């Protein structure tokens, strides 16, 4: 499966995160605002503001980055990652109360 990027997050023990072509097509179909924005997704996992434990699946973590979308500074990009594989991503206007497992030390 072709990868659009294969990188690591910024935690002290970095975790691998990758995006497949198939998952990117999935994201673009369901969330067309992210078409042509692979770079934003990569930025969100390499430089997230914080990472949460998903409340529905112990193997899933959610990466959040704010203000990355052009012209929409108040929105967050939520990237859903299961064991390193990005499953989906979309813009969110509010946050869910999830357990934060890592947070960037400065904004």
């Amino acid at each position, binding site marked *: 499966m072709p990868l659009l990027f294969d990188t690591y997050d910024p935690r002290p023990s970095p975790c691998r995160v990758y995006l497949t072509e198939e*998952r990117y097509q999935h994201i673009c179909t*369901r969330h067309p*605002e992210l078409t042509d924005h692979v770079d934003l997704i990569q930025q969100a996992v390499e430089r997230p503001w914080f990472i949460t434990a998903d409340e529905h699946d112990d193997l899933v973590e959610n990466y959040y980055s704010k203000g990355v979308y052009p012209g929409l500074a108040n929105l967050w990009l939520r990237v859903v990652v299961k064991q390193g594989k990005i499953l*989906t991503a979309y813009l*969110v206007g*509010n946050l869910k109360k999830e357990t934060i497992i890592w947070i960037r030390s*400065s904004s």
Partner: protein
Amino acid sequence: MDTQQLLAEYYTTPELIPPDPKTINPDNVWVDYDVESDILVIYLTKKPVPGVSYHIGNNLIAITPFDSNTIIGFQIEAWEKEFVPSQEQLAERWPNIRRSLSAERTWSPMLVLMALLLLTGYFLKPGEDEHLALALTPA
């Protein structure tokens, strides 16, 4: 302002305007179930359009356009894992609907029908004066 303080501002949901079920055109309902993420996505706009998602309930996410608070779609997280088992009638019918889907075919007429029933019977419930309110919690 540190990051924790900043986050606190984003835990609230803005006032969102639910769609009127009477104006939902079945031909404009786009629905898709993704097995891998276990998320059901519904759009009322014939096809997905750019927008913003807002968490409005345990598993429920509303989608609005960038320039409006009117809901044009929904995402339901943990669809098979949590939502379907929590709804008795849906749980009975879901296996048949599920068989109409595959990795390559992530929608079917049965799925669209289910989405319509879900929209009118669960998310959007009639109020006392025929105004319709978004149901944030199960009936």
